[in-house]
C-alpha cells in the first residue's frame, strides 16, 4: 500500500512485487458448509496447498491475503462475511468455492440464502462444483496466481474502487436480515 496504488511500477520491480503476492497467499478460511471440508482437505497432507505458497488458515483477517468462501452463505451470515472481508488489508483476493457461494446452488429458491457471495464481496475466482474437489481449488488458486502475476496493482485498486459501490450493502439499499439492517453498526460494539 502507499505507493503501490498510485504508481505503475516498471517491469522488473512490478514482476518482483507481483511474484511476492503470487506466492504468499495467506488464506482466511471462511468455511460455511460441506465445501469447507474440501477446502480443509486441500490444506492437509494429501493436497497440501502450502506447496503453492498458500499458507493455510491465517491467524486472523488482518494477516490474510485471500478469502475463500466455501459453502452456503445465508443472509444472516452475510454481514459477518462483509466484515471479515473489510478487515483484510489490501491487496486482497476472494475465491468463491462451490455452487452455493457462486450463486446459491441448490438453494436457488431459498428465502434465507444469499444468491452468490459476489453480491457481498468482489470475487476474483469462481470454482464450480458441489462440492468441488480439492484439486479444483488448487486449480482455482493457480488461476488466481496467474492473474496476480499479470496484474498491475494500480489497476487492481482502480477496479476495486469502481466495484466498491456495487455490493448490495451500501447505505442506500438497506437489506433487512434477521430483524435488523446489515449496516446496523451497533453489532460492531460487542
Amino acid at each position: 500500500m502507499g505507493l503501490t496504488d498510485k504508481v505503475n511500477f516498471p517491469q522488473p520491480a512490478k514482476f518482483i512485487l507481483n511474484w511476492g503476492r503470487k506466492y504468499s497467499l495467506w488464506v482466511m478460511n471462511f468455511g460455511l458448509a460441506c465445501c469447507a471440508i474440501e477446502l480443509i482437505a486441500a490444506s492437509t497432507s494429501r493436497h497440501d496447498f502450502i506447496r503453492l505458497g498458500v499458507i493455510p488458515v491465517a491467524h486472523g483477517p488482518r494477516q490474510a491475503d485471500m478469502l475463500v468462501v466455501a459453502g452456503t452463505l445465508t443472509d444472516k451470515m452475510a454481514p459477518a462475511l462483509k466484515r471479515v472481508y473489510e478487515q483484510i488489508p489490501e491487496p486482497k483476493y476472494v475465491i468463491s468455492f462451490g455452487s452455493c457461494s457462486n450463486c446459491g446452488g441448490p438453494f436457488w429458491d431459498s428465502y434465507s440464502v444469499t444468491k452468490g457471495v459476489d453480491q457481498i464481496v468482489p470475487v476474483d475466482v469462481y470454482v464450480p462444483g458441489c462440492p468441488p474437489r480439492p484439486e479444483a481449488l488448487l486449480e482455482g488458486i493457480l488461476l488466481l496466481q496467474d492473474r496476480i502475476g499479470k496484474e498491475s496493482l494500480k489497476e487492481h485498486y482502480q477496479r476495486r474502487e469502481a466495484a466498491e459501490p456495487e455490493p448490495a450493502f451500501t447505505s442506500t439499499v438497506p437489506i433487512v436480515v434477521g430483524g435488523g439492517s446489515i449496516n446496523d453498526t451497533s453489532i460492531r460494539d460487542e
Partner: protein
Amino acid sequence: MIFYHFFSNPWAVFALKLAAVFIFFLTAPLFLGYVEHKGLAHMQSRLGPMEAGKFHGWAQLIADGVKFIQKEDIVPDAADRRIFMLAPMIVIIPVSLVFLVIPFGPAAVSCHAPAGAGACGFWGENFDVGIFFVLAISAISVIGMLMAGWASANKFSLIGAIRGAAQLIAYELPLVLAASAVAMQAGTLSLVGIGDAQKAYWFVFPQIARFIIFVIASLAELSRPPFDMPIADSEIIFGHMTEYTGIRFGLFLLSEYAGIVSLSAIAVVLYLGAWHGFFVPWIPGPIWTLAKIGALSFLVIWLRATYPRLREDQLQKMAWKYLIPIALVNILLTMIFKVVF
C-alpha cells in the same frame, strides 16, 4: 599492508562486525523459517512450500516479505496510534541487539587491535557481563508485546499481552537462575569466557537439569509451542499481533524467529560447549557453533510439531512449583561443588 591498516582501526573492524551481525540477523531467521516450513511439513507427511522460487520453494519467506511490504498498513480506529506503531520496533530491537554478543568462535590467535585481545574474534562485541546483557535486553521485548496488546484496542490482543507478561514473569526467574548457575561454574559473566571455560567438558553434562530448565524457560519466553498461549492462534487469534498487518506483522514474525536463533545460540554457548567440537577437531569453531545452533533450533521446531499447547494454569504451575525450586537446588549444588573442588 592496506589490510593490516584497515583491520588495525577498531572502528573499521567494529563496522565490519556490525554489518556481519546484521546480515546474520536478517538471514538466519529466514532460513529458520524455511526449515520450520519444511520440517513441520515433513513431520506431518506433507511437502511444504514447493513452488516459490521453483527449487523446493526456497524463496517462500522472501515472497512473504515482498508481500508484507505491499500490504495495507491498518491502524485500528480505537487504537492508541503512536504506541501501536512503536511496539514492533520495541520488540525487534532488543532481539537484534542480542545477536551482537553471540560468540561464534574463540578469540583470534594473533590480534592486532589496539583495544586488546578481547576485541577480536568471531563475535560482535565482547561485554564483560555478556550473559546479563542478554537476559536484560531480551526481557525488554515483552514491553513491546504489552504495548502492542494494549494499544490494539482489541480484547484478544489484551488477553494475549497479559498472558505473555504472566508467562515472562514466571519464566524469567528459572531462566536467570539456570544461566547464573553456569556463570558461577565458569567464574565469569562474559559469554566468551563461558565458552572458553568449556574446553574440558560441556556444561550440559554435570547437571543436565539446568539445561532442560533453560530450554523450557526459553521456549516459554519465546512463546513457542507448547508454551504459545500468548499467541495461541486457535483461541486468541495471535494475541498481541491480532491487529497488525503487513510489514509490522512481518517484524513481529522476524523477531520471533530471530529470538529462536538468538536464544538457541545463548543456550549453545552456555551449555553445549560453544565452539568446542568433538571427534573432528579440525572443523573450525564457528561452524561447530552454527551447527549446534541449528540443531537446537530444529529441536524447537520438532517440539512444535509434537506437543499440544499447555493450559495457562499448567504453565504457571510448572514454573513456580517445579522449575524454580529445581533451579534453586541446582544453584546450591553448583555452589557446593565450586567451593569443595
